């Protein structure tokens, strides 16, 4: 795969920059450019690009395209009108690759009020369908497509999440966007150690990592982690990051997802991500 090294970046989606105390992505680029080397743009084609993203694009800065509106395991969902919109938006965004949670972004048809995010059914059959979707989207857009492990409070199926995504990446012959925070959520729900299953996962497939804060919750005795994107990163997530960075020779990008938090609140976590990366020469994009 001939893909560029992007370094450390930030993420956004339509309207995220309008929230109170939102991350000023161009301000971060100006004051701490090492933490805003690229922008991961979360896109629903029905919404398009907000002015924050357009301002970033006008400066010709690097991006990735994070889809928010495709169920890759459902062939009917990848219809021609949606693909035409994706191609048009990709022409404007000029991303290094496409990526996004490989799961259920909307139930039934793509319609108002149907958006949610569920993880895939963790089965062999679903991994095959998901891989077909990844390969087809790559073929239709001419861009590499990196599936990402989604967050959830409930996972259904008989495979470990990492075994499922190992199958998807192998069948689609693609790289992986490993979300360390989402993986920590999954491992905690299953009662596993944060690193369970990573020893048998093909870490050479990991091209991008997400890091984000989480909040531990309790709902009637049911303990879970909320994927809050707050600046406080849980220790489980740091452990996963450290483990993967040390063993992912093709890692090209790390995103700290903190789009609704001010710069000052995010700098400590950015700094820790940078230290982890610099500790491990296995990630050539991050050697100094």
């Amino acid at each position: 795969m001939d893909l560029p090294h992007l370094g450390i970046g930030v993420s956004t989606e339509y309207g995220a920059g309008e929230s109170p105390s939102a991350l000023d992505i161009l301000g971060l680029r100006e004051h701490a450019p090492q933490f805003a080397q690229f922008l991961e743009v979360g896109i629903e084609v029905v919404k398009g690009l907000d002015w924050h993203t357009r301002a970033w694009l006008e400066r010709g800065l690097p991006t990735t395209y994070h889809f928010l509106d495709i169920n890759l395991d459902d062939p009917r969902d990848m219809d021609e009108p949606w693909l035409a919109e994706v191609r048009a938006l990709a022409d404007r965004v000029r991303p290094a690759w496409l990526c996004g949670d490989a799961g259920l972004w909307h139930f039934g048809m793509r319609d108002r009020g149907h958006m949610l995010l569920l993880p895939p059914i963790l089965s062999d059959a679903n991994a095959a369908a998901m891989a077909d979707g990844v390969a087809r989207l790559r073929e239709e857009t001419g861009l590499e497509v990196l599936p990402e492990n989604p967050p959830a409070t409930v996972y259904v199926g008989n495979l470990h999440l990492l075994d499922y995504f190992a199958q998807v990446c192998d069948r689609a012959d693609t790289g992986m966007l490993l979300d360390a925070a989402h993986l920590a959520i999954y491992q905690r729900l299953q009662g596993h150690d944060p690193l369970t299953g990573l020893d048998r996962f093909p870490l050479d497939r990991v091209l991008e990592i997400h890091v984000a804060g989480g909040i531990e919750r309790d709902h009637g005795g049911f303990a879970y982690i909320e994927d809050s994107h707050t600046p406080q990163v849980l220790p489980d997530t740091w452990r996963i990051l450290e483990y993967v960075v040390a063993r992912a020779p093709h890692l090209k990008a790390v995103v700290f997802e903190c789009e609704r938090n001010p710069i000052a609140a995010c700098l400590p976590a950015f700094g820790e991500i940078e230290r982890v990366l610099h500790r491990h020469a296995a990630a050539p994009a991050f050697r100094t």
Partner: protein
Amino acid sequence: MTHLALHHVVVRMLYDPAFVQSVFARPEEALADAGITTEDIDWLLQTDPRAYTTDSHRRARSLGGLLEEYPTSCAALVRARHRSDAGTPPVAVLDAFFSSAGFHRGMQAGASLALSFGEYLVQTADGLPRADPAATLRHELAAALARIELRIARLRRIALRSLPAIPEWTDSADSSELERARLHASPCIDWLTVPEGVLDRFGEVRRQLALASSARPSVEAADDTDDGGSVGVGVGVGTDFRWPEPETPAPPWSTREFH
């Protein structure tokens, strides 16, 4: 491809705690029409039932979106139900959609949530008792408003990409037949017959709702200390707006075309 059907079951469980209880108590019965395998059911039963109810605002958020498409019929239905059963929270009749057979049937089939909701409103309004002339008028109005807004919701979702083919003129063709074939109503226009006076009420209710929403916040903060969530949700339908009462009770209803 049972994973798609299984995903739809999970969505239904996320919306309906009663359905979650049924799935775990009587799985074969609760999932008889879901089109999933016994292995799928086994996987569901291995999950924690509490995991489906961590988001206590899911129904309210979805209802908020649906209210945007059905403002007048929701207002009319809430008011009608409130008049006949003042002891129940007014919005309960709308929230009950997410536990209705129509919701579950629609979600399992991958149908539009908004259209399923519109059908629920029509069905619910049609089922309201007509105990006296005033109640009959209120309830028929609610049903008629629901039909109007359901038709509008359907029009919003038509696929404009596949318009009917228009025949070409030829010397040998029957010109009158061709003329008929070439003349279509726009796919954006549909026809609906509603009782006389309903369109005036439709416009008036919309104006009243606009006034009500400008006079008070349409979104009211709600805090759920149970899961620590901080999502603000609210419902923009109330029973305290000034309803345009008719001057004379129950006028004779005739038909009028709406487009």
